[in-house]
């Protein structure tokens, strides 16, 4: 949640001149609705999002839109989150049988982040492109956070 807050705080201000570059990235929705066990898949989804977001900000530094300290803060936060989720998932994997099938949700998320990266490359990592990507990643976090909260309300034993 702290990461979402950070991202939200730095998506603003959004310059109007960047509106022309807006592109729909097709955030994969409902990927968790039909998969089982839901709790584990949410953790995997968040792990994937944290890792991919970190990867994007790390490999191609968005220093045109963010100051270095702020970028470091975001990367630290994402890294911590990812490591924490990794430990959670490893414990679960020990308990359950190791499935050698890649979840559909993971593949959908990968394709989604690939679209984002391709967009950045096409736009040559411009200022506006980064701004749009920042907003998109924030949207992604918000969506999954909300999804998790809804699930929590509906399931007593979450």
């Amino acid at each position, binding site marked *: 949640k702290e990461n979402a807050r950070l991202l939200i705080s730095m998506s603003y201000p959004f310059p109007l001149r960047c509106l022309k570059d807006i592109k729909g990235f097709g955030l994969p929705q409902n990927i968790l609705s039909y998969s089982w066990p839901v709790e584990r898949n949410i953790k995997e989804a968040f792990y994937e999002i944290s890792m991919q977001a970190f990867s994007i900000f*790390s*490999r191609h530094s968005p220093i045109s839109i963010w100051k270095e300290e702020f970028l470091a803060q975001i990367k630290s936060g994402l890294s911590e989150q990812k490591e924490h989720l990794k430990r959670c998932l490893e414990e679960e994997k020990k308990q359950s049988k190791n499935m*050698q099938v890649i979840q559909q949700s993971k593949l959908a998320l990968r394709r989604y982040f690939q679209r984002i990266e391709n967009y950045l490359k096409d736009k040559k990592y411009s200022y506006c492109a980064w701004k749009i990507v920042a907003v998109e990643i924030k949207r992604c976090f918000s969506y999954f956070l909300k999804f998790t909260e809804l699930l929590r309300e509906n399931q007593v034993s979450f």
Partner: protein
Amino acid sequence: MDNWIKLPGCQHITGSKCDFFPLINFYEEIKFRVRAEEENSTSSWYYVDPFIPFQKARLGPPEVRLEAEDKAVIIYLFRPGKRDGTSIWDMDALSFEFSLVFWENSSHGEEQEIKTNFYISKMYDLSTETTYCLKAKARLSWKVSAYSPVYCINTTAEHKLLPPENVTFGARNQSYVLTWEYRDVNVTFRAQWLHAFSKLTPWDNSNEWKQIPNCENVRTTYCVFPQSVFQKKEYYFRVQASDGNDTSFWSKEKAVQTEMYSTILPPVVSMKSTNDSLHVFVKAPKKQFDTFTYEIILWENASHTERKLVSKRSDIIIPGLKPLTPYCIKARVLLQDKWNKTSVFSAVVCEKTKPGAAASIPWVIPVIVILLLAVIAFCVMKLLWKCFNYVFFPVFKPPCSIEHFSEQPFGNLLLSTSEEQTEKCFIIENTQSVIIVEEPEETDEDYRKYSSQSSQDSGNYSNEDESLGNQISEALLQLKPQALSCPGELVLGLSSLGLHSS
């Protein structure tokens, strides 16, 4: 229907195997088909079962590069696949785990198995001028690669300047303190820091080590820097010695979670005293934390017995204290994080409680006295009113004929005389009284009802003309149900004229 694309690098192949440059999406299902061609004829297509490349792909071994110091070896790891941004493993760069096998290349060399996520590792406490060897394999969830080839390296001769040792981290007031040990004098030191997450990224992070302010060219075996330089995250620190010409190798890296050490400022406390309790206000220095509570210690100035209170709120009322006694309090912040950190105590604030309940008794007595006086005055007023009515509404004997009407109202008679006074009420009754005459039943009820009420009010009512008095009061009482618009006192007066019930 389908748009089959020719696979570059796999056209006109004479063998039974081809390598192709993967310009495909690794996470989407892909279909292949192969056919044989000869001159002008072709076979039919053989369709390969569709699959997802990422699912099917197998992991190659990692690459290794070694660098030698005198008593340590630095291991640089590279994940399998090309590093030009086209690899299928690009998106997994942060998920790789490596298993290393490290040994001394001699007869008694024991194998050490190390598991690491870091792309740069270091083996310490080795012997000088010795050969060490390493092989590594990579793991990505359930996919495991084969071992890489064995790489070996020789450690150098002993370096003149030793690296600093026992690097420790601590906090003091609003600063952090980094300390280390070093035997020789006449050396200067410099200390550097690194974000912990840099260790997980496969990109060269050796140039991401940054200089700590106030920690360059220091002659002391410690350096002090403000806490504001670092966020509450994980960092690595290292120290190096220099004697002008030569520099030592870097010390062992110290991992620090700064949140564990960061100082919390104490809160500010103020108090207000009420008669037997104290109203305490605690103000936290800055809104830095999510979950925290205040710990408040309270004691009487004279004694030493302390009372501890824990509260989440910033204003608390402490009841049940002795009045006119000086009490002192101090407070501190208790964080509910994994280290249960606390701040130091705030300054002590003392306040004397106000005079207590004993002093408040005196003012209760006058209130009671006033109430009694009010009751007495009220009774006097009632009596006056009775007299007043008696004087101004003279009792007269009704004609004998009327007496026969036992409970008939004398509303008419009364009305004629009282019209002079309170017109409002009786004007209404004027019309009503006729009705009363016609409907005796109702009046009976009212009479009974109100007689029971007013029987208590008789007080000092004189017993003269009792029977007539009864009758008059009957009439008056009958007026009461309609006389709702009358002022309260008048109604009361009327009913108080009432009866000593027979």
